[in-house]
């Protein structure tokens, strides 16, 4: 058996299309996940115990259930409540809500990794808790959050292959479709893997670059 490069070559334009869909859905999910996660992470350390508990419940539930089930719940489950979403939107919402929980934990961890003395010094100067958070804690936490955040983005990009199950023509789904036509499993899946790798590699380079730009010595 030999590797049929021409089959892969012919599939490239379609795979590229699929990859752009993957990128689109992932970046929208990342954006949504960041919004939710920053709020959830801040709530985890907020002085109000109600907010702490609420975000804790959200994070635990999301992290304790499979993303695939969450996707099905949003796409197949919500119509029972009269909410019909097109697959793309359902995918973004499910992945965004999912990622928000992980981002929330990353944000909380970053904030808590900043020594307590920093908050106390800021409060001692007469700053309010919010001012201390905004000017002193978050800028330092951000630097520490970046690497794990990069990992989360990469994980999310790979997990986006799960939305192929709700008929979104992203990279994995595109690969499946091509194979049903060409039967070139090995070639096409190799191509799919290569595209995923290029995208995750790009993310990790971007994250590392911004890390370097931001780093100050502690």
């Amino acid at each position, binding site marked *: 058996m030999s590797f049929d490069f021409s089959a892969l070559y012919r599939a490239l334009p379609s795979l590229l299309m699929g990859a752009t869909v993957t990128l689109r859905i992932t970046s929208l999910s990342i954006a949504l996940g960041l919004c939710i996660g920053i709020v959830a992470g801040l709530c985890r350390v907020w002085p109000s115990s109600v907010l702490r508990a609420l975000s804790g419940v959200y994070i635990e539930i999301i992290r304790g259930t499979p993303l695939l089930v969450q996707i099905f719940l949003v796409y197949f489950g919500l119509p029972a409540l009269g909410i019909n979403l097109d697959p793309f939107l359902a995918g973004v919402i499910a992945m965004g809500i999912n990622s928000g929980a992980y981002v929330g934990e990353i944000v909380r961890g970053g904030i808590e990794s900043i020594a307590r*003395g920093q908050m*106390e*010094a800021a409060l*001692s100067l007469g700053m309010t808790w919010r001012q201390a958070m905004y000017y002193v804690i978050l800028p330092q936490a951000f630097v520490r959050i970046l690497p794990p955040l990069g990992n989360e983005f990469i994980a999310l990009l790979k997990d986006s292959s799960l939305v192929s199950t709700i008929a979104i023509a992203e990279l994995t789904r595109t690969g499946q479709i091509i194979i049903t036509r060409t039967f070139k499993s090995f070639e096409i899946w190799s191509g799919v893997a290569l595209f995923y790798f290029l995208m995750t590699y790009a993310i990790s380079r971007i994250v590392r670059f911004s890390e370097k730009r931001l780093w100050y010595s502690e």
Partner: protein
Amino acid sequence: MSEWIVEVRNLNKYFGRHHVLKDINLRVRFGEVVSIIGASGSGKSTLLRCLNGLEPIQSGEIFIDGVCITRSGVNLSKVRQSIGMIFQSFNLFPHMTALENITLAPRRVKKIPQAEAERIALELLRKVGLEEKAYSYPAQLSGGQKQRVAIARSLAMNPKVMMFDEPTSALDPETVKDVLDVMKELAQEGMTMIVVTHEMGFAREVSHRIVHLDDGRIIEEGSPEEVLYRPKHPRTKEFLSKVINI
């Protein structure tokens, strides 16, 4: 306005079941320098932290410049603006230059315009002998320099009282003197100061009064001569025999 800048009445503080501060009564006059001495674990840091509201207390009252800060609903941020706090571990903000460390609170809390805040900050840096370090980050400063920047940062809020929690005990011996000199100068200018210290020489030379905290209780208090040379309480004698080299 009362004559006391700090007044503590019957303060009790627990960590869980651990009774850390026991019925503390303490008053500090405007312009007075009070040193607090005592063995490790006697509650010195905790007392300072209670005084600026970083630790909740279980009973008693604390007044700062006539304002009771232990009543619920008090605006602690407002009160803390008039209390400078210097920590053993400096706690400078590592992501900001010395100048930014000093100007942050005046700008964000007191809404002083940047140019004005920087002018004041540079003046304060000159006062602590670090004008040329204005644009250095904390990581580029020695321990003694960090502590002097921290002092300048507190002074920038124009506090009525400065509290120091073992400001020199994390420092290399050669840089201790620079920090103590800055503190002496402050004392001479009439700043009210509460200083937790193991530097007995400094305590004797600069303070008006020395307070000995032993196992959460103030067991001796008086002028440096009284406390250091003619201690009444046997525990104070014992403590001094261990630490003193004056």
